[in-house]
């Protein structure tokens, strides 16, 4: 089966005055139809850059992106427009991503106009339907974005992404700006939309507990590289990469007893500069287990057990439980 989206050896370099930033470096991944892939990592790991390349807001430096087997990274004109109908984006900031001078109705209608879908009355009806699906009243169509709270605005952003019935929505930190009670509303909405429509998500977040809740399969990135790919349960039960382990240990648990009893792995130091990443394994400068080999040789992302990929010299085959996400195995490691 061909995955819905396949990314191979994708690289994005930004040239700055300080040097070339390797924001995303040789990343391969796939997203199955109806699958939710969670992309997690800290600031500067390249997760947003990767998301932006997938929705074609950024041109990759090299590598390929295919949607159902068709190359899409360099589409132009009409072909590019057709691509937009199938892949949409939800932004982090519900304040800056909606035009303050347009009514909500106009914001939701715009994609339909651009893609010449339906007549005036049909579009109106569809806007109403979109508002209903995201839990807003039809009256919202005549209001302006500033009349809504952050959570409601994020619902408007979701409705806009749904307008063209895409097959994949890239959600870039969609709940990070929201309070926890509102965050829960949006996460519930995204999961029920998925159940209704079978839409696939690439869900990008720095928050491992949010990713753990929403994703079928989880990809962990560090400094432009994928370090681990695993099903949601197996990642939680047994993180294999030392970075994933540290990341999980650092997530504050809202449970004092569990928090006290778990092992404390506090990473030393800061993220190295992406302009001159460490030789070999990029995590080695902060890794508590690093050995000589880690500085000399870059670890490839290898499958250690069905569907479980790790880029670490110290993890050997057979270290993880069997687990294949619903989207099938990800592409072979480069």
């Amino acid at each position, binding site marked *: 089966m061909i995955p819905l989206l396949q990314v191979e050896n994708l690289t994005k370099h930004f040239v700055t005055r300080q040097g070339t930033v390797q924001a995303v470096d040789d990343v391969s991944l796939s997203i199955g139809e109806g699958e*939710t892939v969670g992309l997690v990592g*800290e*600031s500067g790991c390249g997760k947003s850059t990767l998301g932006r390349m997938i929705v074609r807001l950024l041109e990759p430096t090299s590598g390929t992106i295919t949607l159902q087997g068709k190359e899409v990274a360099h589409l132009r004109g009409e072909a590019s427009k057709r691509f937009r109908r199938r892949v949409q984006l939800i932004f982090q900031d519900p304040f800056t991503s909606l035009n303050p001078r347009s009514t909500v109705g106009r914001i939701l209608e715009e994609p339909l106009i651009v893609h010449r879908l339906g007549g005036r009355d049909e579009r109106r009806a569809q806007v109403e339907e979109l508002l209903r699906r995201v839990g807003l009243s039809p009256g919202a169509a005549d209001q302006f974005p500033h009349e809504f*709270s952050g*959570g*409601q605005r994020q619902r408007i952003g979701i409705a806009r992404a749904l307008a063209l019935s895409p097959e994949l929505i890239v959600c870039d930190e969609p709940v990070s700006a929201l*309070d*926890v*009670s*509102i*965050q*829960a*509303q949006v*996460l*519930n909405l995204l*999961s029920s939309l*998925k159940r209704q429509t079978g839409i696939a998500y690439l869900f990008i977040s*720095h928050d*491992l*507990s*949010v990713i*753990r*809740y*929403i994703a079928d399969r989880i990809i962990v990135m560090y400094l432009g590289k994928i370090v681990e790919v695993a099903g*949601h*349960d197996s990642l*939680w039960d047994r993180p294999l990469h030392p970075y994933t382990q*540290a*990341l999980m*240990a*650092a*997530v*504050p*648990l*809202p*449970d*004092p*007893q*569990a*928090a006290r009893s778990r092992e404390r792995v*506090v*990473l*030393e*130091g*800061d*993220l190295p500069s992406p302009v001159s990443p460490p030789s070999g394994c990029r995590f080695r400068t902060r890794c508590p287990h690093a050995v000589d080999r880690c500085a000399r040789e870059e670890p490839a992302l290898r499958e250690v057990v069905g569907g479980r990929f790790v880029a670490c010299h110290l993890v050997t085959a057979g270290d993880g439980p069997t687990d294949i996400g619903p989207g099938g195995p990800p592409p072979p490691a480069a």
Partner: protein
Amino acid sequence: MSGVAPPLLEVRALETRFSTEAGLVHAVDGLSFSVNKGDSLALVGESGCGKSVTALSILRLVPDPPGRVAGGEILFEGYDLLKLSRRDMRRIRGGEMSMIFQDPMTSLNPVLTIGDQISEAIRTHESVSRRSAWRRCVELLELVRIPDPHRRVHDYPHRLSGGMRQRAMIAMAVACAPKLLIADEPTTALDVTIQAQVLGLLDRLKRELGMTVLLITHDLGVVAEWANRVVVMYAGNKVEEGRVDELFAQPLHPYTQGLLGAIPQAGRVHYTNARLHEISGTVPNLIDPPARCRFAERCAKAIDICHREYPAPFRPAAGREVSCFVAERDLA
């Protein structure tokens, strides 16, 4: 303890208001709580609940106008800070009591080196020579584990990473060995692995310097990991208070229960098997709020009286408090 020794800080019926074009916002409305010596107290709540305004009120840093502390007392070691002269308050601020903020980039002066800023803080409060203040700076940077402190002391803030800047802020805040450190969302702008470092640092400094810390946060995970006592705020009021393990094991207020249910926990909750608990609706408008439970309109458990009266604090056990008619009825 709290029955014997007087608290280090006691906030009584604090009212802080802001005048806006739309009307008078009651940002903090009759808040009372105390911080005992040695406490790691967390003040937790969502945006707009008044937690940061509380911190600013304690330090008398509420921008006036438009803000004003309209009522109440803030007793620090028995003295009412609201009655102190500006000069005395300046001596306390940065001396016996100091504060760190969420964003170290905007709270550090970009045109002064780290060393200049920290030694200025020291020399404001103590009559020491420039040279010995500078020496103290290096020691302080060492204390907060900034690598290479002799070199870093000459750096400007923009040369430091976010985590390092927050360490420098902390070094400045503890320069005069304050009795109370107020930390307003000190880790919110940081990555989780850096957050863990900074929380660990606060813990260590607390022990080594014998400090008391009031931590302001929206993150219940941080509360559970770090604090020993917690005050939960909602819409300018305290809704619940308790020891951390008690409060998380048995949250009494429906708002606290809702908040805890809304977090995707580390358990087996996955979208395929569980919906997250939602708190319906949004926070109420704090312009001339009515005298009744502020949470009532979002509360699934609300009964008649909740919509008519303001619930008085109910204390089921020592150090435990909840302001909720339903919780009080169920516990009585």
